[in-house]
């Protein structure tokens, strides 16, 4: 195994960050250039959005159920089990809904993007596209970034709703909470700032997931092994970044909304 010097390692990482920033910047800049590839955007929206609905409903439902059980256990000790709806609702809308959706979409779609684009790189299809006079960033990357960002917004709403529903079922079964009371408290506790925070995060997560997936795909080297490596790296990097960015964006949004 060949060891790389610290200087070369640092240079490599700085170059990777620079390349990622260029790709991310151009993917946004291309939104204002023609052609916009509407058909490709819709196709990606279908693959990324509708293709992820079932896993988002399932994970949201069970996370909400688990959250209800844990918070119900604590609230029971204070005789406030009727507040379960508020806790589940706030937890799902502000934090868990966007985060779980981000992680699920990262696992399902960042890997798909990295492997698809990586395979196109190693079989010279990307070079062929450039040679045929088409910008691969415009045709392949921008539609994925736009579709993921927009669909993350809607998937998060579905996840929030599934989570609150899962919490409602668990509250009713394990703590005997009245369903109407549960939904009523869950709805009433939410204010504009909560919804704003819960729906601003997925837009950022979607952008990160798609640009990271495309970046690792477009920089894949070394045949099928390289494509496999790029796929793994895309999932790992996008998942870690989603969690890290969530921490900072939560603080930032709390500061600007004062809530």
């Amino acid at each position: 195994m060949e060891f790389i010097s610290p200087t070369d390692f640092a240079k490599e990482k700085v170059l990777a960050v620079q390349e990622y920033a260029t790709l991310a910047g151009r993917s946004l800049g291309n939104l204002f250039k023609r052609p916009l590839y509407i058909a490709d955007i819709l196709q990606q929206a279908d693959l990324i959005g509708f293709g992820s609905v079932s896993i988002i409903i399932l994970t949201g439902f069970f996370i909400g159920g688990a959250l209800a059980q844990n918070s119900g256990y604590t609230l029971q000790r204070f005789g406030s089990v009727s507040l379960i709806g508020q806790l589940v609702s706030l937890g799902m809308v502000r934090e868990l809904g966007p985060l779980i959706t981000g992680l699920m979409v990262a696992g399902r779609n960042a890997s798909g993007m990295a492997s698809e684009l990586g395979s196109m790189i190693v079989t010279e299809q990307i070079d062929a596209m450039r040679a045929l006079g088409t910008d691969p960033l415009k045709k392949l990357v921008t539609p994925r970034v736009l579709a993921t960002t927009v669909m993350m917004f809607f998937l998060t709403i579905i996840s929030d709703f599934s989570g609150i529903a899962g919490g409602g079922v668990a509250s009713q079964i394990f703590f005997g909470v009245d369903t109407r009371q549960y939904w009523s408290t869950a709805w009433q506790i939410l204010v504009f700032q909560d919804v704003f925070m819960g729906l601003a995060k997925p837009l950022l997560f979607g952008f990160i997931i798609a640009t990271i997936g495309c970046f690792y795909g477009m920089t894949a080297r070394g045949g099928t092994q390289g494509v496999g490596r790029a796929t793994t790296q895309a999932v790992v990097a996008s998942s870690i970044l989603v969690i890290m960015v969530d921490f900072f964006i939560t603080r930032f949004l709390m500061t600007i909304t004062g809530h």
Partner: protein
Amino acid sequence: MASPPAVAEQRRYQSQEKSQFAIEFEDVSIAFESKPVLEDVSFLLRHGETKAIFGVAGSGKSTLLKLALGLIKPDSGRIRVLGEDVTAMREDDLFELRRRVGIVFQESALFDSLTVRENVAFRLLEEGHVSEEEIEERVREALSFVELEQTVDLYPSELSGGMRRRVAIARTIITHPEVLLYDSPTGGLDPVTSNTIIELVVKQRDVYHTSSLLVTHRLQDAFTMGTHYFDRAENKMKPLPPDSRKTVPMCFLILRDGCIIFDGGLQELRETKDEYIREYIS
């Protein structure tokens, strides 16, 4: 395939007026990870001429084609294609130039999620202003040129290696490019299929007078191209009569360790005294 449309012909004349040469390499050098691949490479390709490029594996032949298309940038030197300096052009401007230059990749590089029709029509679909009827007609025309009309609805994975190369040629010629770059179009193919491909290259050279660079490992392919012409009347490739004064616009370039060691015609190649070249072509 019918004659190139008037627009393509007009573009060709404009290019010839702009520059005497289709491609000009001037002291071009490039290295990958500090390892020199091409060093001070200079050569010219005249309009309508085909230049076969030889060299052992790793001598920089494919790199040379990618440089000509601006897919990679040289470390130093200048490259002009159809009078445009590709070394100084931005990627966005290169997309315009690439619409006038075609390349056939070593492994065809067909889009595997698209059908043969969509692959061949790719450029026309991207241009966006060509009608459905015209696209269909031109796809049929390009596929008939490579005698693969029956494959129009198949996917690349359903084709043989030779058929994929021919579809790649059809995809390249559909817009009648002024320059064609072939990267080992016969590599890994059986002799019969190779001959079919070479016949298509010769047809493109002699019927449409397209300027080409052809990278190959197979000497016999290049020699066939140097000793044959395409007979339009009989629609097939025929050898040049031995006593005829007729010649074909064909020359040869040999690379060794990133440098050009030969650049000339068939007769000069046959008469060379260079030991390495003699051994290479024997």
